């Protein structure tokens, strides 16, 4: 493992927490909603 990778892992352990942004909530919410809808539609069609 390179020094850069070790530093990255260390930063992951000790770095500040990034709060969840509204855009992230919208992105994930849209993914889950559209994905579920698509699967339901496909399951009904097939």
């Amino acid at each position, binding site marked *: 493992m390179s020094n850069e990778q070790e530093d*990255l892992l260390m930063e*992951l352990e000790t770095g500040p927490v990034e709060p969840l*942004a509204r855009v*992230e909530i919208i992105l994930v919410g849209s*993914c889950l909603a559209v994905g*579920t809808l698509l699967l339901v539609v496909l399951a009904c069609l*097939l």
Partner: protein
Amino acid sequence: MTQLPNDSAPRRASNDDIWALFLGLAVVGLALFGLAGYQPLGWAAKFEEWVVPAKAVKPVAWALPGWLALAASVAAVTSILSLRLVVLGKSVISAATASAVVVILGLGSYLLGHHACVAATDDSKFVVPFRLGLTGEAGYLVALFTGLALGNLFPGAARRLSMAARTELFIKTAIVLVGVSLAAKTLGQQAAANRVLLRGVAAIAEAYLLYWGLVYLLVRTVFRFPREWAAPLASGISICGVSAAMATGAAIRARSGVAVLVSSLVVVFSTIELVVLPFFARWLLPDNPMVAAAWMGLAVKTDGAAVAAGAVTEALYQPGPGNLMVATTTLIKVFIDLFIGVWCFVLAVVWQRWFRPKGSERVRFMEIVERMPLFLIGYFLAFLGLMVLGNTMPETLKGIKLVEGQTEAFRKPLFALAFLSIGMATDLRRLASPGMARLLLVYLVSIFGFIIWMALVISWIFFHDIPAIPPVVTP
């Protein structure tokens, strides 16, 4: 896709991708002479179950001794691998040596797996003290364990051979050839082909939208990782392993080490899934081979391990000739691969608009094209080309079977080489690296906590009513 990238991995189509497209199409192009009744690849070795070594190999079509066909196959694959390495600037001697050792180990393992004690499924054909009944596909597992032993017990030797042990090259070339196999098996059974193709669409919705969203949410809220880690992790775990993690890392402009660390974890876990999941599927779903095949495509990350898991699953079910199991696993993986470019473009736009400093480099639409895996072109050319030909000119059906016979003689050894390479690239010591514990936990919770179970349910919904062998349609 399991080839571990280095920190300076290029963003554009990889060298393996281009070679896979070229080699896959070259094999298909030569095999197409089968349409006219000629078999220019008829010298290639076909592996059989054996007790007497002399009967282990025979040529596809030509009248040759088995050992000569094997020697010809070894020489052909070694030459092509060596040529690629020489073109890339390696010395002829080191290229030829590494290529020859990898090919001999891969094909040797595949051959060992065909021994009747391991492979035979029928008591009447061989007299052996015991038989595991795994079919010749067990050779893939022998190759995997050979690779694991080499990579973890003799890492120095594995490093020297790694230039020739290219999982991506082997599996992508083999996937182009699976296009031929899928067409040959579904020709005349358009309904079966359509059903499998349409169900592939469900895989896209599942991988990109459900898995990605859930993993991202888990990583950001429960594990409190920063965005720079969350997006590559979500893509690596949800979509298609190494290539998705690397492409996402590049799209959101994460530091290169992030995607490399995620990728190393993906490779190790894919290998574990590959060894465990097919046997679990066989136990859990004894009467649903197509659900199991689809499950492998949806649950096992990285193309190589997923398609390989499909092959092992097929061996465990033994559904018989003409079955669609490996073709289904491959098709699902191919459908998922198709959208990596589009997904990374979406992420790049979101990150540029909301999370990157003002004035940073703009996202270009061409990035979608640049991230499209090229070997998929070969797969669809082979599949659609033969489907159109067979459907418009039914008299070519016999010739298409000859084409498939020749391409299969390359697809199976390429799978064996991919298994060997996956094993060699799987560094189990990575799991014990300091600081990896949280990453490991994310992966464990995501894969075994919900991804494989969701994949199982969705595979069952979409594939439980599809037979492994399409019924013969009588006009």
